[in-house]
């Protein structure tokens, strides 16, 4: 085993070790809990692996047999594409660990479950075996079922029960469908993701999986409820794993169905447009800051379908940027929705956040819209008109957010009783600023490398 593989193995095992470790999980909170130390270690490990994955452009692979006699293996591989997402995900999980309130019920259990979610997320993104990927998705659903269920206080037990059941159901169905689809498409080979023989059933199942994985507000009310009611650490972990799921399913386009027909792309495009319009329109009727800002992740995730719908090249770069951007963005808005704008650091944080949300040149939102816009121009007048209308709607939403935040005399209620409000400003606002700068840097590097 060479050093890179050893580092990758350590990277995979660290959160699992943290989860089962009998050492105290520091229930009082603070910067250095076991979970946050593991996250920092994983970020450092990724930096070490970066020399091979980014500088040399190589792929690190690792595999282990689950059942002999069948191609039921856990095959993990790390390339530049996955590396970028995992780095951002680890930084978000670090924030999630910090966001866990030291006074929350079942706080120790929550930290253990967030560590497990962290492990599942990385394994899911790196997995190349279709059955193992489906199994990991099911396991992630179980982790979130318990995490959401135990994180809620007694007043919100019913809401937590409803959200946890839906998240578990969704993850289980996606996992099961992934397994059945994998057996159908790759069962005669090695179950690894590879170019399919373009059977209609297989393509249809994949399209269903992509659509199901995106929390479109029409049928995914649980997503907006999760952002509104769940503790911030749990919400951030959920959105990070959900982004990983969306990234995985959308990236299969380039591997399995590079020659997707235009009708199928059109279906994704229409669903994506409808989903994003519905998500952004809920912003105007929001009663709280959390509701208002919470509609944006749903909007961006719906844009993944639009990106796949207009894609030409195999690599859907705008979908990748969205999945990179959404977890970090969610972490930032969760904090922005509860802060009181009292100090300079907090004001700088909000200003930079709004600049990013607005989509100034160089920011991830700019790259996302420019990639979709360029393809819409190529596809003709109808696509261009729809894109312009969507962008105008988004722009109006941004103006509305700025107005409600800075100009209205009647400021919006935060909508939640959060421990973040009284938390250390440097940890949240300072780390948020770092995260935003890192996000801009990461997307710029990804734009050039991928």
């Amino acid at each position, binding site marked *: 085993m060479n050093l890179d593989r050893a580092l990758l193995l350590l990277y995979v095992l660290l959160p699992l070790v943290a989860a089962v470790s009998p050492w105290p999980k520091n229930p009082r909170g603070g910067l250095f809990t076991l979970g946050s130390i593991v996250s920092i270690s994983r970020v450092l490990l990724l930096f070490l692996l970066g020399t091979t994955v980014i500088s040399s452009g190589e792929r690190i692979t690792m595999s282990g047999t*689950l059942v002999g006699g069948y191609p039921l293996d856990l095959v993990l591989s790390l390339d530049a594409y996955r590396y970028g997402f995992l780095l951002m995900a680890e930084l978000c999980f670090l924030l999630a660990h910090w966001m866990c309130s030291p006074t929350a019920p079942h706080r120790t259990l929550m930290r253990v479950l967030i560590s497990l979610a962290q492990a599942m997320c990385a394994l899911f993104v790196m997995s190349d075996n279709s059955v193992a990927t489906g199994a990991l998705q099911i396991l992630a659903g179980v982790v979130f079922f318990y995490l959401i269920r135990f994180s809620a206080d007694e007043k919100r037990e019913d809401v937590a029960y409803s959200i946890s059941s839906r998240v578990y159901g969704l993850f289980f169905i996606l996992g099961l469908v992934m397994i059945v689809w994998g057996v159908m498409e790759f069962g005669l080979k090695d179950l690894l993701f590879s170019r399919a023989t373009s059977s209609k059933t297989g393509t249809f199942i994949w399209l269903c999986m992509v659509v199901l994985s995106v929390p479109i507000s029409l049928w995914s009310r649980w997503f907006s409820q999760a952002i509104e009611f769940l503790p911030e650490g749990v919400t951030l972990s959920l959105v990070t794993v959900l982004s990983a799921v969306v990234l995985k399913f959308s990236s299969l386009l380039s591997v399995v169905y590079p020659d997707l027909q235009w009708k199928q792309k059109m279906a994704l495009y229409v669903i994506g447009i409808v989903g994003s319009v519905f998500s952004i329109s809920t912003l105007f009727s929001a009663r709280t800051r959390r509701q208002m800002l919470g509609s944006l992740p749903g909007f961006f995730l719906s844009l993944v379908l639009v990106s796949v719908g207009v894609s030409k090249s195999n690599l859907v770069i705008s979908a990748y940027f969205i999945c990179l951007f959404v977890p970090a963005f969610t972490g930032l808005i969760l904090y922005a929705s509860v802060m009181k704008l009292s100090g300079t650091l907090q004001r700088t944080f909000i200003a930079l956040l709004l600049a990013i949300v607005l989509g100034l040149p160089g920011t991830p939102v700019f790259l996302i819209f420019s990639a979709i816009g360029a393809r819409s121009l190529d596809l003709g007048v109808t696509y261009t008109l729809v894109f312009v209308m969507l962008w105008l709607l988004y722009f109006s939403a941004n103006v509305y957010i700025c107005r409600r935040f800075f100009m209205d005399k009647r400021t919006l209620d935060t909508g939640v009783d959060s421990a973040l409000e009284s938390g250390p400003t440097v940890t949240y606002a300072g780390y948020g600023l770092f995260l935003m700068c890192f996000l801009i840097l990461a997307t710029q590097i990804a734009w050039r490398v991928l």
Partner: protein
Amino acid sequence: MRGLAGLLGTFLPFVVLLLSCWGPVTGRGLWRISLLLNLVSWACFVFLSAGFYTGNIPPDGLASSPLILAGHPWSEGLGLQWDFQSAILSLAASSVIVCFHFLARRKLEISRATTAGVCAYLGCLLGALGAGQLMLFSIFFAGSLLPRFIFTGADSRGAGINAVRESAFLGILALFSLLLVVLAFSAPFKESLSSWFQLSSSTRVVLPGAIGLSLLLFATTIGAGIFPFHGNARKVFELETMERAVPLALQPLFGFVILFRFAVDLFPGEFQSFSPYLQGFFSLALAASAVSFFGSRSSRERVFWLQQAVNCLVAVGFFSLNRKGWHGASVLLLFQSLVFPFFLIVLTCHERRPALPIARIAEFPAFALTTAAAVLFTLFLPVSIGFYGVLLVVWSLVEHREWFLPFVIVAIPIIVIGGITTMFFRLGGNRSAENKSEFQDLTFEEMVAIFPIGIVLLLLGLVPKVLMGPMGVSASALLKSMGIQV
């Protein structure tokens, strides 16, 4: 040597029966001796199973008992023999009874009949698992009926007595049909006694194989308590306490041993013809079980329907008559022989306690951990070996795209999604709400009853190849020996 260990392991539990009848040994003393002998029996099966890993016995080979129970008219002698699957199943059954000793210590100390009944039942089950011939199997099956009725019926009242009575009637019917098959279709009686079964006096017409297969399936479904005779198994869940249901969760092993060991061997042609229909039948039964599971109102009902669903999956895999299906069915058979006793032990612990609000569950870590583990393992999620069993069974169907595949695929999410949201939070929901006594975490004895099986299930789920590798080889060998292309 390994065969001798198997033989010793099978007959040691009967010593407890003799000691119980003897008289002077009672109470705690009898419990200790029973535990010790069952532990020795368990160690014997560990030794036997280890032989398949050390290379002492090839994975597709057999370990034969040195004791020949009968010679003539059997050409190869009537004796016990174990392949990998039966050795592992025996080990699982033995482990369950050892754990049961801790769960039901008080009951076993008070009632000699229960101690004797449980041990004799285990001995008969182990004998049936090791039986190489249908005749020997029938003897052990017959032997299991009486102890079973004794330990389920002891101190029972009302519904419990009725349950025992009805089960006894059906058990005797199953035995009768088994004996008919032994006499009419199995060697060495087939040739010598065929004239007994003449349908016409002019020419010698023996019973058609289809009737033999039907009789065997009848015995199987009653023996295992599966659809359409699931009412027989349901009686178990009407007992006053779930404690006594733990050994009875091993009952499906009797039925499925008939299928795996003897059915294809005795009726190869009929099996090939009827298998697709039976597969479709059990797929529909699986869907029905899943729906019933979803609509269940109490934990006992849920466990019952879940067990039915797993039984149907075993049958679907078995009737596929291909390697993946058999492998999956074998894995599921082992899975259910461990997981349902485990779940019932946890359920017993729940029923012994008052209701606990979800907000307080983390205050009792052992209770919370075992409850969550019971649900996760039972619902064949990827941390349990049942996941791989279900996967292989579904895989065997996907390849041929049979008409009943959607029923199987739809049934699984119904069970798993419905299960996790209901089984955890309403586990033991049928207990009296009036019981307001102080809640206590698991006692030491309850933990000793729960943790060994829980740890084994977790390890098997995390490293499935340890068990599934040899089990796959064994399943392939069994299919090949029956002339079925793998």
